[in-house]
């Protein structure tokens, strides 16, 4: 199993396609950082226009923590496509290249094979998120400095103290890893039904788009299924930035407004991962390799 896992990682990181995602993320984050560096003050003035009439806001609104939040909001919608590029190619790509039949003539179990491949896809997903974290958080902290974080929600604003932020990002990235692993598991599952990569990649994105639409539409018929859709829970990383307040409306350090929601979302995503991977093992064990 470990040998299989090692060889899968070796193959992933020897393929030029793997680095497209890293390059795309670097470009996207750099563009956002550049834009905020150049016109950050105007952007902050525009965003805070209404609040400035009510509150006196001191300090650096556009700081590293705030930039990271902006980047995550923009980027985590698009990262699934980059994950699908690799995860949805894991089996179909081997079938397309003709290497699947050669691999399966080796003394490796099919369950081991599938699990090793999925673990390798997960490692790729995690490394992609680590790269996002390095660029979006650490580079932003270096470029923009640090201060308290001021976030505008739908009907209220949240101020999080500088010393209370870092662990929230650690949690948010951890949750994002779970969400993106769910995408990887979906792509991986769909990868078994095709002998070229395009189909599963498009199918993965189509499922995500359809489910996201269903998750966001406020139609009673869809409300019943919303809690079961993984897309409903993928954005729950934002819960880490909803802080409890005391009677004086002051934020309480080290708290999350709705931890139960976060736990529920994590469990739903985890269940989806187990279901997709379990289904992948089941299908693959019965699969006739005809490619």
């Amino acid at each position, binding site marked *: 199993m470990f*040998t299989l896992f090692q060889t899968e990682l070796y193959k992933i990181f*020897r*393929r*030029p396609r793997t680095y497209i995602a890293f390059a795309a993320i670097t470009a996207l984050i750099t563009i956002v950082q550049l834009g905020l560096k150049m016109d950050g003050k105007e952007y902050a003035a525009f965003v805070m226009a209404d609040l400035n009439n009510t509150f006196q806001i001191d300090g650096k609104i556009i700081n590293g923590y705030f930039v990271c939040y902006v980047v995550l909001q923009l980027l985590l919608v698009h990262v699934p496509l980059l994950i699908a590029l690799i995860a949805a190619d894991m089996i179909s790509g081997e079938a397309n290249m003709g290497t699947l*039949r*050669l691999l*399966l*003539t080796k*003394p490796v179990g099919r369950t081991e094979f599938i699990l090793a491949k999925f673990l390798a896809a997960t490692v790729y997903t995690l490394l992609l998120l680590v790269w996002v974290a390095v660029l979006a958080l650490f580079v932003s902290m270096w470029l923009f400095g640090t201060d308290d974080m001021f976030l505008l929600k739908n009907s209220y604003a949240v101020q999080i103290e500088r010393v209370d932020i870092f662990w929230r990002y650690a949690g948010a990235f951890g949750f994002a890893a779970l969400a993106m692993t769910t995408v990887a598991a979906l792509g991986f599952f769909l990868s078994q039904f095709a002998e070229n990569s395009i189909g599963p990649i498009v199918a993965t994105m189509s499922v995500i788009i359809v489910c996201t639409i269903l998750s966001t539409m406020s139609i009673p018929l869809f409300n019943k299924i919303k809690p079961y859709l993984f897309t409903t829970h993928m954005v729950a990383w934002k819960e880490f930035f909803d802080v409890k307040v005391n009677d004086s409306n002051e934020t309480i350090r080290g708290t999350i407004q709705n931890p139960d929601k976060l736990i529920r979302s994590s469990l739903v995503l985890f269940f989806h991962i187990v279901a997709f991977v379990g289904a992948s093992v089941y299908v693959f064990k019965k699969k006739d*390799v005809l490619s």
Partner: protein
Amino acid sequence: MLYTMMQQIIQVEGLRKEFGSLTAVNNLSFSVAQGDVYGFLGQNGAGKSTTIRMLLTLIAPTSGKIELFGMPLSSRRKEILRNVGAVIEKPDVYKYLSAYENLKLFARLSGVRVQHGQLMDQLEMVGLAQRAHDKVGTFSQGMKQRLGIGIALVHNPQLIVLDEPTNGLDPQGIADIRNLILRLSREMHKTVLVSSHLLSEIEQIATKVLIIDKGKKIVEGTASTLFDPAKTVVEVQALDNEEAFRLLQESTWAGALQQNRKGVLLQLDRQLIPQLHKDLVAMNIALVSLQPRHSLEDYFLRVTTGNQHVDAWQDENIVSGDTQIN
């Protein structure tokens, strides 16, 4: 590795595979002994690749039993596959890796850690040492095929399974693969199962042959029996075939004689062909052509193709001790 006293490397009994309403392999039974070069013959779509894929666990049989090295394939798959090397149809490997890297990767997956020198020796054996560190994407079909065989051999397996190994190769490539198979058998004492739709290829290397068509066994026998030169068929074309047939019937050749619509057929030992030619000239038969054909080739074409473009001699004798026609 332990296997039975008969040293049967492959034993297949009543193998069947259905894809929906299509029966790709139908009640197929055969066995391959240690050291055999077992030729697996059949037209395209006859069921060769499906059978081979079942032997390698790529396809699950609908029914039937497969044993390799005396062990049931279904329950001792890993143990068995450690001793099997295979090239199935096209030898597809990772194009973005070099020949050396591919070989190393598949050696690891085969459960062996091979040293640099051994990998280079393996590449040398298949004639790729000079290109060891070039990306496989730059290789010709023949080079990929040789690398595929190198990968099949890298863990020193007892059984080599080659499915249509000469597909897409030029004549030199075909000769190289043929020589490699002979070397594997004669010098390295490997058991080789090789499939092809070309009789001429199998004829030159196989010690035992199985012909299948539409998933069924047609004939199985030792090459020495099936390729017996005494079973050469000569087709005589004359200006007047009926007259030629009458004259031959009155000659010493009467016992070897058969007639069909297109000409006159004689079954004889290949060495007697010059004498036949002399006698035909002596009998003043206006000869148009005299064409020796291998009896098995005629037979193979007749039984494995829908249209009977050759009215071949049917050799009752082909059903003998070592040989069976189904």
